[in-house]
């Protein structure tokens, strides 16, 4: 079964130890969504994925990896 992994937590800490709240504000989503993403419980839309990558100042592929 296809799976999408992410490096949000690691990249968040590498980005000046950004908090979940800060990332949520920058990406325009709730902190609960960031938590769900980091726990692998939720797969974001393309738009939100791009917003998160931009907030972390990295490319989309650095944040999300597709294992199909």
């Amino acid at each position, binding site marked *: 079964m296809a799976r999408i992994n992410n490096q949000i937590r690691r990249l968040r800490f590498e980005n000046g130890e950004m908090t979940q709240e800060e990332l*949520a*504000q920058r990406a*325009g*989503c*709730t902190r*609960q*969504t960031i938590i*769900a993403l980091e726990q692998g419980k*939720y797969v*974001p*839309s393309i*738009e*939100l994925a791009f917003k998160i990558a931009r907030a972390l100042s990295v490319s989309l592929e650095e944040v999300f990896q597709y294992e199909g």
Partner: protein
Amino acid sequence: MSFKRFTLIRILIIIIMAGLISWAITSGNAWIPIPVIIAALIILLLFRRRVREVVVDERVYSTAEKASFFALRVFGIAAAVIGVTLVTLGWQSSSDLYKIGLTLAFSVCGLVLIYYIAHIYYNRKYSGKK
């Protein structure tokens, strides 16, 4: 305004609204509930606009969609079965069971009709057809 404060205000408004509607029902004032509900919704909307934080995002909508679809299926099947059963039981005597069953059955029909219309609308909107 923080979301936490808005939540407290919302609970307070709901309690007041529930109290007013309960009083209206017990005192027989049928004209009170509708303006009370409208006023409560307007007040909540005004306070909601002052909340700084992102409260609703795509995950919340996605969860609501799944929950709504599940509720529709469960209620639709249950109400249809119960409605038909009550109509059948009350058929001969035209008792309250018959009226309740009929109300329930037609409610489900209305719900399914609304769902069907909405489904057609959103299917056309997102299918690329013109």
